[in-house]
């Protein structure tokens, strides 16, 4: 009987990363730009998705992966009603999407008929950011009622995203949300992060979001040709 130590030095997330890379290659081959939308529950992911589908109608064909921890498919139904091709992904209690789930969901979508794939992650500010999906962009949707301390409480999330949307700006007059304190936290974690304040309800600020969405999709199409 012998005992020995084996040096391993392998990332636990490497298996996920490999699947994410294959997802990315498949998206690129189909000329699709994919956006991973992350947020806490109730921040307005589905509302922003509905506004986005309406806002880019006639310019971009949208595919959706809506995830939930249960079989309740109302988010996917809302996206379908707004005009997207959608698949509902039930994670059966798991608190984040991983690349394998997205791979399986992509198999259910008509990739040839999609320009922009919106992936609605599980409402959670902790672990989704650790799991690459193969998407091109990671977007965090924050909202003013969550409070101005969120960057300090969820540093991994705030430091790991490419764009930050701040939803529900129409509620600012009713809240004690210190925008300077919030911004200092964001800047410390993710300097230069593109931040788009808006309100899905009043529609103020949505134009900047649509412009960003159109810019990433158009740029990808230009590269693909």
């Amino acid at each position, binding site marked *: 009987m012998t005992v020995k130590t084996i*040096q*391993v030095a392998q990332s636990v997330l490497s298996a996920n990363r490999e699947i994410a890379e294959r997802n990315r290659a498949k998206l690129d081959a189909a000329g699709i730009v994919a956006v991973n939308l992350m947020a806490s529950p109730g921040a307005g992911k589905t509302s922003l998705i509905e506004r986005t589908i309406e806002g880019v109608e006639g310019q971009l064909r949208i595919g959706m992966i809506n995830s939930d921890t249960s079989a309740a498919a109302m988010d996917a139904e809302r996206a379908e009603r707004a005009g997207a091709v959608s698949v509902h992904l039930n994670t059966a209690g798991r608190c984040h999407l991983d690349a394998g789930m997205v791979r399986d969901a992509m198999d259910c979508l008509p990739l040839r008929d999609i320009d922009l794939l919106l992936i609605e992650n599980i409402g959670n500010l902790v672990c989704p950011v650790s799991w690459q999906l193969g998407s091109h962009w990671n977007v965090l949707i924050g909202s003013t009622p969550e409070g101005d301390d969120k960057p300090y409480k969820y540093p991994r999330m705030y430091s*790991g995203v490419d764009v930050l949307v701040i939803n529900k700006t129409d509620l600012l007059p009713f809240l004690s949300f210190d925008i300077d304190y919030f911004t200092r936290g964001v800047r410390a974690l993710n*300097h230069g992060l593109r931040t788009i304040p808006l309100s899905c309800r009043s529609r103020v600020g949505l134009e900047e979001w649509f412009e960003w969405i159109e810019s990433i999709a158009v740029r990808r199409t230009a590269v693909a040709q």
Partner: protein
Amino acid sequence: MHELSVVEGIREIALRHARSAGASRILSVRVAIAGFSSYLEDALAMFWEEVCGGTEAAGARIEIVRTPVGLLCLECSKSVTAAGEDLRCPECGSEWVKPIAGQECYVESIEVESSGG
């Protein structure tokens, strides 16, 4: 609950390396976790016992070491190590820092037992 996915990943890596070395049993696994990550050690240890049952890793110890968070200071351009939870540059005190994404969680080494060898 994300600790469950993580320990499943740790188990798979450990089993693969143990099997390719012809080992019959895994005695311990050493795992490094970035100080910035949200994995709770207690939860990892609890799920670890759970997922290893019935495999060569059954009963194996899990040792968790925390690795410090690396920062790039955008003010003084130095690569520095964060002092605990404080994410300001320890050199110049600037808040303009960028956490340098490291390996979130990786298996450093495993200790195995081989019969006969």
